[in-house]
């Protein structure tokens, strides 16, 4: 296999989702460009039919997720205002044939990429996306990797070509360059990226879009760190921030999927019930992609019986304390993204502890040991949920004080990543501590909120010298305080 690939040129990987294409001609751009990605994949799929009819029969299955891709902007689950904003920008940029730049950020799975593709399709704009190629030779016999060409040069050549190269087949189509997969070299040396942008600004005749996902759990946000305020300023980059998809948005997206299913794919799926859609909406945390994926998972024919059994199992295990209302959601116990539904259950158990008396001794109905068992693979998210929600459940300051103190202990233990067991200590301390501290839980209904302020802020290398090394605990804890403080005093670290 190694010698087979050796002579391929760098642009080859742009086609690499297509396994059946014949060897590439020398001119990359004409065929690399994808007029919305989806349709190009379909086109390829039909090519493969002619070459090879074994794989074709169920091409729909192969790409099942594409079956549900939005077709027009109205199908997008994104807020209409944001869609319009992108639309306006694209129209203006295309009219002027300028090298306008757009930065699109937002949480994972909120529909950034799909929005661009769908709108581009509406206006018949050709989208060319950069995909970081295999950038090194296969290891030579002595196991060393050899770099071929500078990554940033390749990148620049590619985007400029994509923006300016016109072929007869284009029909004078407007063009748009899309970058979501950032070459590593830029993350290592951001100045290289600025140079590339400079060149693009001067030479390109089409707009370019950069898409970055932001996420709560990651300490550093690699690609976002490229777009500092001064970079955005310098290149007059328009910045549109998407929010997570709203419940309503998710619901209508899933309803749409469900309609497509009942129109075309009843042989593969059971048509989802309203109940099921609700469950998926609740467990997807604003992430459409994950929601559609989970719906697929839940509706696939044959899997239904399993959902039933899991529901029965749940019922049986809860026969002592029947909770009618919760049943619908318990179906998805192990399914949703981040297990949100079962996190909600867990939070309820911990923050409304119930004590029973058995043979004269008091005992918690849900032993902390059993509660933590479910969250060993995501202890931090669970503790973050507890931290966000515990206070309204406490009725006395005294007890809340104890709660805060166990949470602080738990935080400290969870920060120790070298020793796996510390995760369990931390989780247990938080769970048992909160349950025991809360002698008189507030019985009012408190909706569970998702954790908000738990994002650990790591210092940038530039900030390090400004900090007193003596006060750093593993480079983490005080930094969080430091950045919060800087925000309060108006983002002027120099004041310190």
């Amino acid at each position, binding site marked *: 296999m190694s010698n087979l*690939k050796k002579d391929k040129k760098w642009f080859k*990987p742009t086609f*690499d*989702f297509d*396994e059946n294409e014949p060897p590439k001609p020398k001119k990359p751009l004409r065929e690399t460009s994808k007029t919305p990605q989806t349709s190009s*994949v379909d086109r390829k799929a039909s090519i493969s039919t002619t070459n090879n009819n074994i*794989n074709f*029969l169920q091409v729909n*299955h*192969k*790409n099942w*997720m594409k079956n549900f891709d939005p077709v027009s902007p109205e199908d997008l689950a994104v807020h209409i205002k944001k869609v319009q904003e992108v639309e306006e920008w694209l129209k203006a940029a295309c009219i002027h044939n300028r090298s306008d730049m757009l930065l699109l950020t937002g949480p*994972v*799975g909120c529909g950034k990429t799909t929005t661009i593709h769908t709108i581009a399709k509406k206006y018949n704009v050709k989208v060319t996306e950069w*995909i970081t190629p*295999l950038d090194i030779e*296969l290891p030579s016999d002595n196991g060393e*990797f050899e770099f071929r060409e500078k990554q940033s040069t390749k990148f620049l050549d590619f985007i400029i070509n994509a923006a300016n190269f016109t072929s007869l087949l284009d029909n004078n189509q407007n063009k748009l360059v899309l970058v979501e*997969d950032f070459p590593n070299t830029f993350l290592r040396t951001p100045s290289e990226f600025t140079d590339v942008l400079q060149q693009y600004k001067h030479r390109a005749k089409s707009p370019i879009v950069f898409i970055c*996902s932001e*996420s709560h*759990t990651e300490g550093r946000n*690699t690609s976002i760190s490229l777009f500092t305020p001064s970079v955005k300023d310098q290149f007059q980059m328009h910045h549109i921030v998407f929010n997570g998809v709203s419940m309503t948005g998710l619901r209508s997206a899933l309803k749409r999927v469900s309609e497509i299913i009942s129109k075309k794919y009843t042989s593969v799926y059971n048509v989802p019930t309203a109940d099921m859609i609700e469950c998926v909406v609740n467990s997807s945390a604003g*992430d459409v*992609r994950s929601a559609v*994926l989970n719906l*697929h*998972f839940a509706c696939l024919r*044959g*899997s239904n019986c*399993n959902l039933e*059994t899991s529901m029965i*199992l749940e019922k049986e295990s809860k026969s002592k304390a029947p909770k009618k209302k919760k049943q619908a959601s318990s179906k998805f*116990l192990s*399914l949703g*993204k*981040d*297990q949100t539904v079962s996190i909600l259950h867990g939070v309820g158990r911990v923050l409304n502890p119930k004590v029973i008396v058995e043979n004269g001794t*008091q*005992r918690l109905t849900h*032993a902390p040991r059993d509660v933590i068992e*479910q969250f*060993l*693979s*995501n202890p*931090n998210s669970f503790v973050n949920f507890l931290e966000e929600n515990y206070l309204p459940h406490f009725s006395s300051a005294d007890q809340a004080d104890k709660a805060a103190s*166990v949470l602080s*202990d738990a935080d*400290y233990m969870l920060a*120790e990543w070298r020793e*796996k*067991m*510390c995760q369990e*200590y*931390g989780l*247990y*301390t938080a769970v048992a501590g909160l*349950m*025991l*501290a809360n002698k008189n839980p507030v019985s009012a209904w408190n909706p569970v909120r998702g954790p908000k302020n738990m994002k650990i802020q790591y210092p940038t290398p530039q900030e390090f010298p400004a900090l007193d090394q003596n006060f750093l605990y593993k480079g983490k804890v005080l930094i969080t305080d430091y950045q919060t403080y800087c925000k309060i005093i108006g983002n002027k670290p120099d004041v310190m």
Partner: protein
Amino acid sequence: MSDDDVTIMEVDEAVPKPTKSTAKPAKSTAHLPWIEKYRPQVFTDIVGNEDTVSRLAVFARTGNAPNIIIAGPPGVGKTTTILCLARALLGASFKDAVLELNASNDRGIDVVRNKIKMFAQQKVTLPAGRHKIVILDEADSMTEGAQQALRRTMELYSSTTRFALAANNSEKIIEPIQSRCAVLRYSRLTDAQILAKVIEVCEKEQLSYTEEGVSAVVFTAQGDLRAALNNLQATAQGFGHVSPEHVFRVCDEPHPMLVRSMLDACVKQDIHAAYKIIAKLCKLGYATEDIVSNIFRVCKTLDAPEDTRLALIREIGLTHMRVADGLSSPLQLAGLLARMCRAAAARDTHW
């Protein structure tokens, strides 16, 4: 499906190449680690987490599998499940259509970008609804950069390739990847499940055992079936008979009965009795770290009120962190005892 000619490519432990075959004892299985010899080949043999396993079995029958992440503690069958799924989906094509990468492989950005892409581009003819499978075991140990590089790859090859990830901690998997996968969670196996499996293996191996002996194996395993089988095999090889003494000897762990009586002494605030036991354990040469984690395991099931247990575990945890920082002298253990006694004394007023 004929799985006779299927060879598991690599396994996450550094064990000799495991040639599978429970049904066909053609190859000598004498020197095979039991974890491999008794590794389930089909879904129905997988113990525990029935709900999730049966849901995956659907994909094995119908294809159309999404990308998956299986998250859960070690030794509960994550890797096994993924291998079963791959085998069921791909049958004889297993060899060509599966790329397995685990923590012992280099999985830096370059490997992800190159090896995985190369694999995804390779042409393999598969039935409809089936895909090539990339198995990334212990994916939580991959660097963030490598995971980022994986992100787009996953989407671009979605028509030909599926990813199956196993991880202990799903929080270490970056969100963009979680978003592209169905996340399935496994919990620890129960003691009863482990016990049943251990006895089954004893019987198959015609190994003599006492009830306490197999219980000891279960205790050392703490819900980890891999550890249970490894410990059982070590005991069998060392002593040919499974009794608690043998088990704790081969596992090089303090006897939990000793530790339990030490904890009981702490709860009664009898520091002298407690210290005698610790001194003995130190003299026997157990490492501080092993002693502390053993104390924790015993403490989890200690017959004491929950608030006492909480107070003790808090102290144990804090001590463990110091030990992890390198402070592993017996003095730390003595300090732990003192603090546990005090915690036990204070608990009535504290809570």
